């Protein structure tokens, strides 16, 4: 083939043009507004500065809580049906109860199965029944808990006014939170560290904490720590739950900060009833298993709203109001990993990366020119177009450029010339075998093609695995490397060919510069 068809030439030029157009946003000042599909490469947190948190939802805690509720349900069911039982106990993931009578046991198992969907009820030879959640039910629970948690985390972070946070689930029990521009994540961490589970409990006025410790505790009550100091005995069952709250705000009363709250209709009704029936009793406001305050009910509160007084500073009251507004997390979150990069370091990394890229590029180009002369110059054009295409592709796909990603670009510069080297060496051989320059050039391209594909695809395989198993910056590196391999395969074959064909037609050389 001595000529490239018009369509092919147009196709090649079109691809290059698209690459140029797509990479333009990277050189436009940030103040210029561009459409969403025409954006510069987004920078990873390691380059623009920011904080990355990996949170884990404590699923064990969730399951334990559910099992606790299940135990109550089992007890109630047994009492309702007047079945005699022994050793009712709740473990980490199952409820166990012993029923000696065979018929009663079979009957009870039937009742238990109907308590809730997704329960597995089994029995052993001693007559002990074990009730637990099926694998499927647990997975669904986990998914629901994660989704809920993400929602709550998002609300809390939004309250702080963080710009463009990324909040995603990772695996079955984790949440990744990325906060661009956040240099000091302490505030965020403090907010995410609280479950903010609030509920109102009547104080058991007949039992003092001291009595309770000596064993005079009825099984409907429990001991709890108070933020005001000491301990209180409260009813196990919440009078009103925090899920009925609709709003919470900071207010000031008698010179101190308080948190005012509003209930929805159901909550308001319940709260009204409780306060009406228990005038003179104390109502404990419990947050995350600690009593904030336990005021005495002065009279019925029927409006569906109230205030929480405590020893709050304005800031504490503000945080509490915010936490109550955003809702309770279904389970405690643990911070497994935290990575914060300052904007200064990010900027330095970009500076170093760009400088290293330029040095690398110049070195490779000079080297190629010194080795291949004119064809080396052609390679230079190819490499530059490759860079533009890479940048364009990365901008368009919305890849996040990370520091290792920059390294990927620099390496691609070095490795991308491989295809050209393969082609040129092949041409040299063909000339040696007695072909004319034109013929040799043509055969060089065709013969080198399968080698280029094979060698690049193997690297692509490695990059794919990196993408699969890597997280964060490493993933960014794999994407950059893959894009680089694909664009360099394109440019080194098509663009080089275009230039060389043009050169052959225009100058009709009798000798190739690589000979």
């Amino acid at each position, binding site marked *: 083939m001595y000529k490239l068809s018009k369509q092919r030439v147009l196709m090649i030029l079109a691809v290059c043009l698209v690459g140029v157009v797509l990479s333009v946003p990277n050189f436009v000042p940030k103040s210029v507004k561009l459409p969403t599909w025409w954006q510069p490469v987004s920078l990873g947190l390691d380059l623009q500065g920011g904080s990355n948190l*990996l949170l884990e939802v404590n699923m064990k805690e969730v399951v334990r809580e559910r099992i606790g509720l299940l135990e109550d349900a089992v007890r109630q069911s047994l009492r309702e049906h007047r079945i005699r039982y022994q050793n009712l106990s709740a473990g980490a993931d199952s409820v166990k109860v012993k029923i000696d009578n065979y018929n009663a046991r079979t009957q009870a198992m039937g009742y238990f199965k109907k308590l809730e969907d997704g329960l597995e009820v089994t029995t052993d030879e001693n007559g002990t029944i074990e009730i637990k959640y099926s694998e499927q039910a647990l997975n669904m629970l986990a998914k629901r808990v994660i989704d809920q948690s993400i929602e709550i985390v998002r609300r809390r972070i939004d309250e702080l006014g963080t710009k463009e946070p990324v909040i995603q689930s990772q695996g079955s029990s984790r949440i990744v939170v990325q906060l661009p521009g956040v*240099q000091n994540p302490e505030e965020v*961490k403090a907010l995410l560290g609280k479950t903010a589970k609030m509920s109102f409990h009547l104080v058991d006025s007949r039992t003092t904490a001291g009595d309770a410790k000596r064993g005079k505790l009825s099984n409907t009550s429990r001991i709890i720590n108070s933020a005001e100091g000491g301990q209180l005995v409260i009813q196990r069952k919440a009078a009103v739950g925090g899920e009925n709250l609709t709003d919470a705000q900071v207010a000031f009363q008698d010179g101190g900060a308080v948190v005012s709250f509003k209930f929805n209709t159901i909550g308001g009704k319940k709260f009204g009833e409780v306060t009406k029936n228990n005038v003179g009793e104390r109502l404990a406001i419990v947050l995350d298993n600690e009593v904030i305050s336990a005021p005495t009910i002065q009279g019925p509160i029927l409006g569906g709203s109230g205030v929480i007084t405590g020893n709050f500073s304005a800031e504490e009251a503000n945080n509490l109001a915010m936490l109550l507004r955003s809702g309770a997390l279904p389970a405690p979150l*643990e*911070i*497994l*990993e*935290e*990575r*914060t*990069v*300052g904007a200064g*370091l990010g900027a330095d*990394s970009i500076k*170093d*990366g760009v*400088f*290293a*890229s330029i040095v*690398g590029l110049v*070195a*490779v180009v000079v*080297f*190629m020119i*010194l*080795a291949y*002369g004119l064809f080396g110059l052609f390679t230079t054009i190819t490499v530059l177009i490759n860079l533009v295409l890479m940048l364009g592709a990365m901008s368009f796909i919305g890849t996040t450029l990370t520091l*290792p990603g*920059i*390294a990927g670009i*620099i*390496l691609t510069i*070095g*490795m991308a010339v*491989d295809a050209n*080297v*393969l082609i040129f*060496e092949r041409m040299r051989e063909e000339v040696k075998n007695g072909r004319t320059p034109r013929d040799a050039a043509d055969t060089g391209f065709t013969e080198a093609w*399968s*080698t280029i594909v*094979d060698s690049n*695809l*193997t*690297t692509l*395989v*490695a990059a*794919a*695995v*990196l993408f*699969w*198993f*890597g*997280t*964060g*910056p*490493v993933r960014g*590196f*794999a994407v950059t*490397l893959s894009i680089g391999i694909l664009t360099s395969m394109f440019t080194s074959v098509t663009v080089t060919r275009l230039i060389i064909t043009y050169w052959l037609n225009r100058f009709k050389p009798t000798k190739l*510069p690589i000979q």
Partner: protein
Amino acid sequence: MRIFSWITKDTNIDFLKPRKLTYAISIFLVLASVWLMFFHGFNYGIDFSGGVLMEIKSENKINVEQIRQKLSVLGLDELTLQSLGEEGNELMIRAQADNANEESQRIAIVKIKEILGSSYEYRRVESVGPQVGDELKRAGVIASVIAILAICAYVWFRFEWQFALGALLGLFHDIIITVGFLSLFDFDISLTTVAAILTLAGYSINDTVVNYDRIRENLRKFKKMSQYDLINKSINDIFSRTILTGLTTLCAAVALFAFGGDALRSFSFVILFGVIIGTYSSIYISCVFLNVFDLRKTQEKRAQDVNPFGNV
């Protein structure tokens, strides 16, 4: 002008001749590396070991000893301080909180910040829990193994099984020796290092495949040539390409090593080292090893499988 044109000249080197020596060198290096791995161990970064890492910067030169004394009251395990940057105004602090859990690490960060105060710029603050570290370690090993197997599967698919075996040997050779070097020089092992090792695997296999491609082609072209000569000829045919590509990649890697900043230092070291060891192993392990098989027999067998009446 073309002062490097000597590279693009034909060579006629007998690569197979010193194979006893090169095998011996490779086996020695691999064994030494394995020994280092087990008895010297690695300098794991916090990605894998868990812990706290901070980088601070000050207007003036930082007195490392003074900071060490200030921080010693916290009783942190394995507290290491390392000066960064040319002017000595940057410092890396690494520590393990005493009872190694996420919460104590969080507290450690807050305390370090309290002690050092706000006159420093906190350029990097990282905390990785021990659990995550273990998981990342496992994921890193799994990723590397799967990458190698996937690459070899591809080679098997495109060539013969002997080639896949040769490629596998070459890859293990490169990775083990590189890892041994990382151990010997106590380089920081982080997730980025794993990425670098896999990139080097990609480079090495790329080189190997180019050689294999030529061997396959020549097997078809030169039916009468002895296998020994054929492998040698194939390596020589593309030797200039091997050197050129190696050198251009080295150019890029050196630029990265010299100017890419501290964060990419161990990454670029692996690549630098990898280009050299990868080029060596492609020839002296992956290709030379093929000579133990009778490649022509497999090739003929395959041809017969495809067309049982081919010789009629």
